[in-house]
């Protein structure tokens, strides 16, 4: 943004984090947190990542809520798979071609793929734009690819406009 | 009622810890042991927080936070070492 306040959003998050850490929402702690919020971004500016601008903040919130629901629901499915008979499992490595090219957004996508049960993102080829996903129980690989692309990649693409 | 539930939960997480510990000791390969260690520290966080509720004190929160931080960093450090080892080899 400018010289003394490089990223206001990070400053706000840091201040809030401090309040959570001390578990005390008083004015004194708030001032201390605000000081950290101002100082830390200035100190860590050389490490700051280039990231695409957020196009639809509201859609991001809705998207995260959907991901949270997916995590809970699919966890129950995986719990069943773990306790069920092992012979019925069909694990597979699946290569998912990506449309997103931005490293920051791919990181978010890979993390979501790992958190939603049944799939772990194992490797990324940034040159060719391919995400290697290991699925615990894959019926049809093409179906898994389509689902990841439709359910997670398309909304992310829209939210970050890339 | 709550105490009973807490005791059952403590026992369950304790068993989970033992299972993970068994995997650490009897792992097939080095990555498998690291994987078990990763599970072990997450289980220990659950155990500590459960014990905190049982003892009606939030003083164990800092311990849980520290284990979370150190556990993650050590997993990353060891896997990085495993990955880099062959480049030197």
């Amino acid at each position, binding site marked *: 943004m400018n010289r003394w306040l490089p990223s206001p959003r990070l400053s706000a998050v840091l201040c809030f*984090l401090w309040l*959570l850490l001390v*578990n005390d929402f008083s004015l004194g702690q708030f001032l201390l947190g605000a000081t950290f919020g101002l100082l830390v971004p200035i100190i860590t500016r050389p490490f700051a990542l280039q990231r695409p601008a957020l196009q639809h903040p509201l859609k991001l919130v809705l998207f995260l809520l959907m991901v949270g629901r997916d995590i809970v629901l699919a*966890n129950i499915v*995986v*719990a069943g798979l*773990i306790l069920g008979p092992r012979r019925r*499992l069909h*694990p*597979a*490595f699946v290569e998912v071609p990506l449309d997103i090219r931005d490293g920051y957004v791919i990181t978010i996508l*890979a*993390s*979501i793929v*790992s*958190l*939603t*049960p*049944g799939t*772990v*993102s*194992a*490797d990324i080829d940034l040159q060719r734009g391919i995400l*290697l996903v*290991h699925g*615990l129980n894959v019926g049809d690989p093409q179906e898994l690819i389509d689902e990841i692309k439709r359910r997670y990649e398309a909304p992310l693409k829209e939210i970050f406009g890339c | *009622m709550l105490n*009973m*539930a807490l005791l059952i*939960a403590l026992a*369950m*997480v304790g*068993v*989970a810890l033992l*299972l*993970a510990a068994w995997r650490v000791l009897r792992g*097939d390969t080095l*990555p498998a042991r*690291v*994987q078990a260690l990763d*599970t072990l520290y*997450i289980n220990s*966080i*659950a155990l500590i*927080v*459960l014990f*905190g*509720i049982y003892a009606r004190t*939030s003083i164990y*929160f800092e311990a*849980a936070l520290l284990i*979370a*931080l150190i556990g*993650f960093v050590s997993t*990353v450090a060891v*896997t*990085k070492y*495993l*990955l880099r080892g*062959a480049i030197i080899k």
Partner: protein
Amino acid sequence: MAVWIEGLVAVLVLLGAAFTLIASIGLVRMRDFYTRLHGPTKASTLGVGSIMLASLLFFSVDSGSLSVHEVLITVFLFLTAPVSAHLLAKAGMHGGEKLASGTRGKPWDQ
């Protein structure tokens, strides 16, 4: 403490412990390194998250003031679990972990 809150805390605690236990059972029971990766990274994250929610509820009601620092550990675990899973998978592929029979597709060379 109200009975229904106590009951809610008890349910959350048991649910969290159950998920944690299932994750560790998966760690012992699954046949190869990659399928073992699934239980711990997700089920235990959700399990600990559920226990954290119980702790948040319990201490907020017990002390009469909002206690939210449990959120920190939960968010931290949700942020780091995919990263450690990814690195572990890479380390496994690098070390040439065996695949369970019937696995389709191939891991990449590291």
